[in-house]
């Protein structure tokens, strides 16, 4: 709805005022300015009222109008206090509009902006990932230096969030914080380093963007992530692809040796073969081949190639520049077709692409020659597109195609667009100098143009002919004579000056005409343009030296005129010439050299492409487009003579890989090429399992909550079958999607519990003949079946020989439902592997007994869960809690008065202790002395409600409401113990 229409509701007076503001320019009379000012004042009063009203709809209406004002660029900053009050509104649209306002004006009203911060801090903890993300977005967009520490904290927290969307937002926030306070660089680099390790395609583009903005020189951070980025590239969203590709281009130029050597061996198959296995890589190096492409270099080229088919022109261009700067010369041509395709796109896209093609076509004619016709000019093209096409056609001209091109040029010369016609003439001149066979033809053609009716065309022809004659030392007096005849009709100064110069330079070839031209010039000297006057003086001097008999008087006359000219350049030149050619006593020293100075043979001008020097800039960049170094342009370094250590890119092979790729020595499985999602995932999964392994081991030792939460995300992907055929690939895709959805749903009910993970021993290495096993409950929903409890087992080989075929054997009771981990084919000495399994305990603490088998031995082991691990958190409001509690009274209620350790009386400590025992969720409570927790049993989903009412002197009433009374009493016992402990 237009603001104008809105004002109508407010009454006619305001409409008039509004019209006044529209029409009154800012610098108008004071009266109008005053009117404008008061109108603003009044209008805002009314908006203020609406914003402070109780009705949501009024507020929304007001905010919409305020946004309308912002969009028009009008000042609405006085409304800040009224607007900021609505920041905590329940209405999402209203809230969003308030955010828009806040981001716009917070910088100007810093103190007031601080009022809103707490709202965002609260929202950062919201179970809804969308709300967390948007809170971080707004918080980080508020440019108020005081909140830098808060932002830093929020970014760090969000970087470890479960939701990749929130992590993406945190990557964006990094750049904002950096631009607000560059001192935070070190800390931000730490966060970037962490986010670079992220395996989510959603995060990759944004974090690389942050990297480029904050620390583009920290190439070392990329090493370990290089291969991952290459592999993820196809699945990253298109904008991220552009950023990653340009970063990788720079990276590759510092890390690999040049593939452009003369004697390089380019055997695609050969390279592929040794890429596939690491062991052969070394063999390749010892062979005496002159150049072998680094497999990582090849990986980059291979993985970017499909992106040439992208619908996003920026992606295609960035791949093209990557190939241009990184690929062996003979491979670059694969980008040609795609670039030519982009010419079908919008005018602006054409402009940039043509600029890049122009630069490329100077160095590599062959690339674009087959597509020459795509650069033919249409009369409907914009002028700058036409000139660029002309440029490219000129670059492409060679002996074979010159006649076609010249025929095409003939049409262009007749164009109604005269600027374009002039450019064509220059292009003809360039073709004529570059290709000697056609010089004469071109020259004749240009001479014909001299009789053209259009002045610009004639002038341009004269200038070009002048240049051509200079490059052609042969006799061309006919042409010069012809031009002299035309001289009277030509009025364009540049053309007149050119003819005069030609006369002077070749005055000996036209001895009769030249003095006559000078005579005419002497007549009109005073009315000529400066540039023509200068050339007249030149001509006079040259004629004086060669033919002083006829021209002495004329020269002196011209020199006298020049002496009193208004322009000091001309006075200066006249004085200089006079001293040089007319000797007098004082200064005759240079006189004898005058002839050699003025009539020295001059080198011919080189007619070059305007794009000749553009290749100093990376293609596709803003700097290239402008031919100026833009702010923040990162120079592309030269290839290193010797490649830096390539092992830096090796990601430590953590054993879990074998869980998925059981055959040692073969890193990747043969995959069917026809599915492009599935195998991308395969690779991802391999890496994912690696990372989950490392994350979990670190979390068990250092109990860092962040890495374990990251682990949660990756573990979701584990069940995707890898040995898939056609049908299962699709299945795995669906599964993957569903898992992600379930993850996003999950994260909304789970309040992350930050309690240290307890690890229990499953098998001691003494009794396990070297095989040690530990387990812990990761407290994540089990993927295999929802009624199973997830258990992570860390298997370590403590013996000195490798253990083979580790798997799960018989179980008891036989009905026990276990989801086993896949058989581990081989575990090397000292290596360890983390595997996930799921056990359905049927809500009882009865131990799950099963056999852990290796190839040779079998060990009976048992997992006995603590009762708290059989639960999963459930989120509910206090209201719901009380309602459900009311339904579970009587037999379903167990309670006891307990004595708590004094250290445990703070609510934080209570939460911590309780959560360490039971996997339940905290229910926010309005009363200070009552703490509530809610959970459900994993197997049957029965509700378990725990409430703790603090009494005086560190006693408390602990109540548990659940149908499972046995569990209740066991839980009560455990909790009592935990809370009594300090």
């Amino acid at each position, binding site marked *: 709805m*237009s*603001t104008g229409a809105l004002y109508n509701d407010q009454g006619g007076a305001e409409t008039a005022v509004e019209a006044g503001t529209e029409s009154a320019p800012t610098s108008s009379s004071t009266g109008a300015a005053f009117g404008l000012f008061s109108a603003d004042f009044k209008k805002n009063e009314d908006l203020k009222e609406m914003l402070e009203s109780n009705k949501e709809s009024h507020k929304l209406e007001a905010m*919409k109008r305020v946004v309308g004002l912002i*969009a*028009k*660029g009008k000042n609405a900053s006085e409304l800040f206090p009224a607007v900021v009050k609505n920041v905590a509104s329940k209405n999402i649209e*209203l809230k*969003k*509009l308030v955010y*828009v306002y806040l981001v716009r004006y917070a910088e100007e009203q810093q103190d007031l902006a601080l009022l809103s911060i707490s709202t965002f801090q609260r929202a950062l903890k919201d179970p809804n990932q969308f709300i967390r*993300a948007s809170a971080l977005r707004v918080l980080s967009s508020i440019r108020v230096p005081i909140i830098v520490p808060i932002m830093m904290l929020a970014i760090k927290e969000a970087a470890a969030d479960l939701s990749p*969307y929130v992590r993406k937002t945190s990557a*964006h926030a990094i750049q*904002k914080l950096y631009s607000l306070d560059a001192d935070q660089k070190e800390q931000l680099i730490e966060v970037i380093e962490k986010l670079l390790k992220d395996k989510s395609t959603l995060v990759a583009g944004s974090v690389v963007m942050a990297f480029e903005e904050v620390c583009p020189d920290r190439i070392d951070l990329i090493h370990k992530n290089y291969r991952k980025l290459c592999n993820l590239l196809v699945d990253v*969203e298109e*904008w991220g692809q*552009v950023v990653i590709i340009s970063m990788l281009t720079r990276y590759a130029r510092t890390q690999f040796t040049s593939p452009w050597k003369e004697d390089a061996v380019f055997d695609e198959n050969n390279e592929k073969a040794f890429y596939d296995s690491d062991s052969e890589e070394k063999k390749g190096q010892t062979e005496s081949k002159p150049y072998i492409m680094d497999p990582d270099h090849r990986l980059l080229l291979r993985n970017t190639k*499909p992106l040439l*088919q*992208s*619908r996003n*022109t*920026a992606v*295609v*261009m960035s791949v093209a520049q990557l190939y241009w700067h990184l690929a062996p010369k003979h491979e670059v041509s694969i980008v040609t*077709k*795609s670039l030519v*395709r982009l010419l*079908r796109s*919008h*005018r*602006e*896209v054409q*402009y*940039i*692409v043509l600029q890049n093609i122009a630069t490329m076509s100077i160095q590599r004619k062959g690339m674009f020659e087959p597509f020459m*016709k*795509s650069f*033919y000019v*249409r*009369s*409907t093209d*914009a*002028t*700058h597109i036409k000139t660029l096409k002309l440029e490219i056609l000129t670059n492409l001209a060679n002996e074979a195609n010159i006649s076609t091109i010249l025929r095409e040029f003939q049409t262009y010369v007749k164009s*109604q667009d005269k600027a374009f016609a002039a450019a064509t003439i220059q292009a003809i001149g360039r073709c004529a100098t570059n290709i000697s066979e056609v010089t004469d033809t071109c020259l004749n053609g240009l001479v014909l143009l001299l009789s053209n009716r*259009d002045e610009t065309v004639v002038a341009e022809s004269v200038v070009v002919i002048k240049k051509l004659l200079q490059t052609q030392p042969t006799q061309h007096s006919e042409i010069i004579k012809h031009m002299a005849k035309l001289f009277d009709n030509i009025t364009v100064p540049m053309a007149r000056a050119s003819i005069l110069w030609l006369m002077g330079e070749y005055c000996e070839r036209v001895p009769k005409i030249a003095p006559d031209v000078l005579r005419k010039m002497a007549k009109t000297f005073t009315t000529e343009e400066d540039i023509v006057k200068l050339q007249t003086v030149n001509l006079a001097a040259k004629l004086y030296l060669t033919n002083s008999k006829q021209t002495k008087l004329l020269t002196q006359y011209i020199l006298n005129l020049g002496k009193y000219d208004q322009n000091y350049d001309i006075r200066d030149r006249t004085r200089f010439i006079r001293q040089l050619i007319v000797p007098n006593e004082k200064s005759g020293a240079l006189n004898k050299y005058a002839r050699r100075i003025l009539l020295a043979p001059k080198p011919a001008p080189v007619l070059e492409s305007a794009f000749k020097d553009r290749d100093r800039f990376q293609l596709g960049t*803003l700097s290239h*487009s402008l031919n100026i170094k*833009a*702010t*923040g*342009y*990162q120079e592309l370094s030269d290839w290193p003579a010797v490649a830096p250590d390539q092992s830096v890119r090796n990601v430590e092979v953590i054993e879990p890989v074998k869980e998925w790729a059981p055959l040692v020595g073969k890193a990747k499985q043969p995959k069917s*090429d*026809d599915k492009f*999602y599935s195998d991308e*995932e395969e690779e991802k999964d391999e890496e994912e399992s690696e990372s989950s392994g490392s994350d979990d081991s670190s979390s068990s030792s250092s109990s860092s909550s962040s890495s374990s939460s990251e682990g949660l995300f990756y573990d979701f992907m584990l069940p995707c079958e890898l040995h898939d055929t056609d049908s299962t690939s*699709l299945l795995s895709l669906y599964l993957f999607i569903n898992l992600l*959805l379930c993850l996003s749903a999950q994260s909304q009910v789970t309040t992350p519990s930050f309690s240290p993970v307890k690890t229990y021993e499953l098998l001691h290495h003494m009794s396990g003949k070297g095989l040690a096993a530990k387990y812990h409950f990761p407290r994540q929903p089990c993927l295999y079946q929802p009624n199973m409890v997830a258990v992570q087992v860390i298997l370590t080989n403590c013996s000195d020989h490798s253990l083979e075929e580790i798997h799960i054997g018989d179980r008891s009771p036989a009905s026990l439902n276990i989801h086993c981990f896949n058989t581990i084919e081989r575990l090397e000495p000292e290596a360890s592997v983390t595997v996930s399994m799921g056990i359905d305990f049927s809500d009882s603490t009865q131990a799950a007994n099963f056999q852990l088998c290796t190839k040779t031995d079998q060990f009976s082991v048992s997992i006995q869960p603590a009762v708290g691990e059989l639960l999963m958190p459930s989120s509910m409001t206090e209201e719901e809690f009380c309602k459900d509690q009311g339904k579970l009274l009587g037999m379903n209620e167990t309670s006891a008065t307990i004595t708590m350790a004094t250290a445990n009386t703070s609510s934080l400590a209570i939460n911590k202790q309780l959560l360490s025992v039971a996997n339940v969720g905290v229910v926010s409570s309005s009363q200070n002395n009552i703490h509530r927790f809610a959970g459900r049993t994993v197997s049957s989903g029965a509700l378990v409600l725990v409430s703790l009412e603090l009494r005086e002197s560190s006693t408390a009433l602990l109540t548990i409401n659940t149908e499972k009374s046995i569990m209740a009493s066991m839980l009560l016992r455990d909790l009592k113990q935990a809370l009594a402990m300090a």
Partner: protein
Amino acid sequence: MIHSLFLVNASGDIFLEKHWKSVVSRSVCDYFFEAQERATEPENVPPVIPTPHHYLISVLRHRIYFVAVIQSEVPPLFVIEFLHRVVDTFQDYFGVCTEAAIKDNVVVVYELLEEMLDNGFPLATESNILKELIKPPTILRTMVNTITGSTNVGEQLPTGQLSVVPWRRTGVKYTNNEAYFDVVEEIDAIIDKSGSTITAEIQGVIDACVKLTGMPDLTLSFMNPRLLDDVSFHPCVRFKRWEAERILSFIPPDGNFRLLSYHVSSQNLVAIPVYVKHNITFREGSSQGRFDLTLGPKQTMGKAVESVLVSSQLPRGVLNANLNPSQGTYTFDPVTKMLSWDVGKINPQKLPSLKGTMSLQAGASKPDENPTINIQFKIQQMAISGLKVNRLDMYGEKYKPFKGIKYMTKAGKFQVRT
């Protein structure tokens, strides 16, 4: 990346501004206006303009300049592509992308721009995702909103944002399951004076309108896939499958989208469906010129050539044209010197022609160049390259969808030099 965005209308007024980082004064646009003044035609404004502290990158669509302010190095195509995506989104939301439409929906525009960029870096540009975040304004919804007080803004993170198929939303349901594919080919050609083809190529697209329930997985195969020389895909198409089998396999986005655009290899001879006989002459000394134009069908495989529109930019010296069309209507704008003739359908029995005289400025010399003639036309039920879809199959869902494929040939940049 993108610092600010200014929308400038044809008369040079800034009617909307949006800043993603700190506020850039609108005086930065003065450099743009300067360039605009220098340019003779609106299209001639250079897309990239350097200023002392900023760089301005602009696109012109629907007579509105979208001027993005950049502060440091960024691939210009990145910005240009994004701006075009913004225009496409507006068009998608409001039906048209005009100054009036933008002003009327300024709040939705602001909300959209807010979602599309975060700190100047694109966040959500996929139309399916945006539509879940901000529902397009319709008359019905506006009415419902005013009554119930509900909003256009979604509360949940769009499911697409997190999935591997970000282009498709989940939980799609239709009672009629349909999938329509339009194969549209455009001929770009330059025909010279004598009627011989200088250059001709075929560019094709397959636009789809898919309304299918659930998560269908479609495969589309061609009778003659070898025709397609250079293709670019919607991200949903599995590239490897195409490479290996030349089959398009994809999980489609919901609604309208461009599945594929392709180029037919230039080795193949392109059939030119129309010919033009022309005789445009200006005589030296006389203030009259002759204009004679006849159109005829050629290589159309028996299909009718429809919606024919001829336009030509006559030389500046022409004052007026007095012509007589055998069918259709013609207009001549004496200011822009643009002649356009709406021919309609070509009847092979009675060829359309436009004959008459042009009056020239008295005393002016004869124009050196004859005008070029631009022709637009449509041919239904035919793809000029001969491309044919073999079959369309659906996997992953149980129901039987209704499938339809339509072919059409159009003139792209079709020029005849005279």
